[in-house]
């Protein structure tokens, strides 16, 4: 069972790397926000999976904080960059 | 009940008073409360100095846990002596600032000004008294954050860029100290300074510890504005409110000089710092360059506060020069100069603040003809200026005298000559201001604004410091006795570390058990 969990963790890492690449290369502002948002949700899943892999599943509080801060960061970006030009 | 907690009270008192000063809100209330608290802290530090002189070291384990595990406060003759200067200047500046900030700080920010002042006082006394390396970093951050706030309170917009530059360089300095403490912790496993000293001597010379030492030294020299890293000081002291400059110039950099002395003597040991790492030469060269470059810069400035700011950097050069002589006399000269310089600069900046209060500008032209219009302020400025130059019967002369004798004692007459030449520059830049004040007439434009003397609330603290300047110039018993016992004690702890390290090397195994 731990091999499956390890494989899942590595796969999520790869997905995070791709989301990071999107955040690096993004042409428009909104692509960058999208990359950050996907990166955030994937880290939540990564923490849950690696918690079980390492046998210490009681660190899920951090996953909750991650999801929360990711959402608030997203709302803050939208609130303060509502009227700016999308193409930098 | 009080004596038992004497070591902790000078920190706790201002720490608790700050939130209360914010709650009080109205200017007069928070001013009165802040001055009362600062006065209490001064009395406590007086008792602390006498206790330290009589009993030697006072150790106070916060939280009841024994030192290497809990945090320990260590008070000895050296830091009690500096603490006395800090609390004295803080009380006098608070009395002075009641009227001085009315012209410079928005009324809405007055309560915040007093809260930030109390926080800065708590931070500085925390840095002096704590015996734990990481706790020193925390109190350093408290005093730095309070200082950035105080500098940015002025009405002139240039204080904002000066405060920002000070924040960036101050944070880099604090982070360097954090890296240094981290490297030391990595090799020794402890944070208590005395414990650190014992365990560092167990390693004869490890690269990580030397790097840690180098980072701490660079971080602290940013904080005390040693020559190449002093760029933040002149704009910060020039554009800050006068009451803030008077407080910072007399205390902030001196506390950083004490931190350097403490790390060199009680944590690393003289031979490790000066012999293995050759820091003595580096410090001496930097000090001499600081004295000459900054004294020269002072002579070409047009703003009097910038003149005095560059003069402060030069005076810090004198302290580091005394330190780099690596002798009991040299260290004593530095300790005395820490105390005397606080007096000199406090009086000078208060006088300039009074001129700003009346005339509204601190340019050298603003001083024209003030000799007659503001006699008491300019008399205070003159006496403090003479003290900077080092004229006999003033505190400046005493510290220069001990510095020169310390240099000559080592046969190092080049350094002695450089010290004397340095004070020539002082004559030039102080002379320019006095010449403007006494020998130039009041320009017509200002005749109408009937400039008269400042109120007694600003004059009394100014003259208390000037009289102290003269008193400690004549009767040098208190300062020399405290400074000499401080430097003896510092050298004695250093030798104690040497021989305790010797028997340690014999049995490497028992290093762990030495303190657990």
């Amino acid at each position: 069972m731990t091999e499956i969990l390890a494989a899942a963790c590595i796969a999520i890492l790869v997905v995070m790397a791709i989301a990071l690449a999107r955040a690096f290369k993004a042409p428009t502002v909104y692509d960058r926000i999208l990359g950050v948002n996907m990166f955030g949700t994937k880290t939540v899943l990564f923490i849950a999976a690696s918690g079980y892999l390492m046998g210490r599943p009681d660190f899920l509080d951090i996953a909750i904080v991650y999801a929360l801060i990711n959402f608030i960061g997203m709302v803050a970006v939208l609130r303060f960059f509502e009227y700016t030009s999308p193409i930098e | 009940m009080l004596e038992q907690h004497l070591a902790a009270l000078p920190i706790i008192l201002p720490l608790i008073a700050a939130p209360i000063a914010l709650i009080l809100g109205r200017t007069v209330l928070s001013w009165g409360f802040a001055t009362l608290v600062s006065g209490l802290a001064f009395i406590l530090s007086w008792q602390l100095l006498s206790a330290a002189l009589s009993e030697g070291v006072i150790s106070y384990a916060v939280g009841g846990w024994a030192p290497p595990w809990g945090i320990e406060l260590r008070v000895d003759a050296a830091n009690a002596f500096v603490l006395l200067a800090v609390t004295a200047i803080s009380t006098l500046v608070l009395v002075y600032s009641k009227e001085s900030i009315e012209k410079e700080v928005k009324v809405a920010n007055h309560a915040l000004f007093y809260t930030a002042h109390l926080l800065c006082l708590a931070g500085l006394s925390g840095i002096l008294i704590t015996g734990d390396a990481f706790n020193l970093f925390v109190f350093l951050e408290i005093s730095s954050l309070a200082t950035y706030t105080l500098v940015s309170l002025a009405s002139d917009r240039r204080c904002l860029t000066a405060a920002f530059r000070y924040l960036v360089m101050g944070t880099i300095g604090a982070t360097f100290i954090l890296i240094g403490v981290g490297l030391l912790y990595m090799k020794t496993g402890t944070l208590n300074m005395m414990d650190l000293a014992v365990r560092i001597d167990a390693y004869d010379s490890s690269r990580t510890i030397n790097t840690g030492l180098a980072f701490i030294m660079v971080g602290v020299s940013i904080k005390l504005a040693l020559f190449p890293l002093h760029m933040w000081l002149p704009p910060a002291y020039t554009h800050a409110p006068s009451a803030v400059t008077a407080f910072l110039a007399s205390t902030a950099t001196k506390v950083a000089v004490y931190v350097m002395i403490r790390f060199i003597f009680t944590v690393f040991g003289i031979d490790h710092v000066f012999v293995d790492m050759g820091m003595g030469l580096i410090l001496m060269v930097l000090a001499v360059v600081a004295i000459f470059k900054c004294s020269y810069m002072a002579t070409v400035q047009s703003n009097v506060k910038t003149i005095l700011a560059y003069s402060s950097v030069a005076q810090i050069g004198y302290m580091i020069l005394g330190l780099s002589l690596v002798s009991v006399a040299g260290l004593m000269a530095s300790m005395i100069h820490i105390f005397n310089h606080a007096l000199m600069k406090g009086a000078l900046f208060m006088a300039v603040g009074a001129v700003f209060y009346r005339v509204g500008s601190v340019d050298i032209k603003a001083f024209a003809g003030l000799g007659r219009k503001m006699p008491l302020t300019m008399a205070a400025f003159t006496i403090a200026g003479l003290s900077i130059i080092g004229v006999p019967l003033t505190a400046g002369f005493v510290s220069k005298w001990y510095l020169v004798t310390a240099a000559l004692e080592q046969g190092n007459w080049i350094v002695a000559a450089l010290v004397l030449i340095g004070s020539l520059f002082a004559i030039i830049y102080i002379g320019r201001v006095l010449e403007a004040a006494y020998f130039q007439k009041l320009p017509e434009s200002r005749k109408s604004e009937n400039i008269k003397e400042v109120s007694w609330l600003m004059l009394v603290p100014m003259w208390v410091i000037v009289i102290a300047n003269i008193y400690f110039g004549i009767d040098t018993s208190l300062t020399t006795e405290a400074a000499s016992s401080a430097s003896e004690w510092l050298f004695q702890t250093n030798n104690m570390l040497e021989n305790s390290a010797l028997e340690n090397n014999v049995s490497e195994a028992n290093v762990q058990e030495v303190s657990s």
Partner: protein
Amino acid sequence: MAEFIDLVLLAMLALTALRIIFLKDLFAVVMLFGIYSFLSALIFVNLDAVDVAFTEASVGAGISTVLMLVTLAMTGRKEKQSTHSTLLPLFVVLVTGAALIYGTLDMPPFGHPDNPVHQHVAPRYIEESPKEVGLPNMVTSVLASYRGFDTLGETVVVFSALIGVLSLLGVRRKKKKDLESGLETHSVLHVVSKIIIPLVILFALYVQFHGDFGPGGGFQAGVIAAAAFILYALVLGLPKAFAVVGPKFLQWMASFGVLLYASVGLYSMYKGGHFLDYNKLAADPIAGQHYGIIIIELGVGITVFAVMLNIFYAFGSQAERSNVQ
């Protein structure tokens, strides 16, 4: 397996830092800084530093990124080309880097159990703290009891940050005329925010009182509670948020938190112990430790909540003014 994850995450972190150096669009810099904080919090989880990951994620990634975004909204997004050459900074950086590399040459290797760090002070914390202080979470017991003075100093640092921001930006009551409301066109956000804000506050209280048994504590709880109110202010606009929790009340709360912390120390002095000695708080030392730690964590939580929210109010009222101009 853990080393491999550590390897990959650190590589990602280095790439993000490199990318930030060469970016000119400041908005992208702040977004990548958000990712940088998240990644470093993830690395802390992987290095068994759970409380630190909690704090870094909520304080480092949450508050810093939001404040930077607000500042950017006022100062513009484009960084202009700097005139002076990059040779001097490169030289200074290389010299410091060389000194650091020189320092790492005889560092104790990463992760070995017999490093000096684990030999001297730490063993007592690991063995005796569950018995002496009685908390499963050793980090909270060391943070609050053994090194409680550090944490008091830190609460005062947060308090002095509030003083700094208030003296610079000063929170002013909103006048009715420039009533700048939040994202009022996003009705979906309104509904969702109204649903999750109570949940977030509940979670913050759980973190506050769960700090003794699992990851959590005063700082994290204060920031999460402040994050909930910041979300409310973002979505529904500052005037409504001022109505719920006013800036004046927050200043009183911040002072009250610091005084609560310090009064625990004074009380233990009054009862004959040293400053912040919790054993004297109650008849049985362990119970005294529990009371002491719960009260000071509460003091820390209140101070951090009040300071973070008040700082956001100060920044938000500045941003609202500039958007309106």
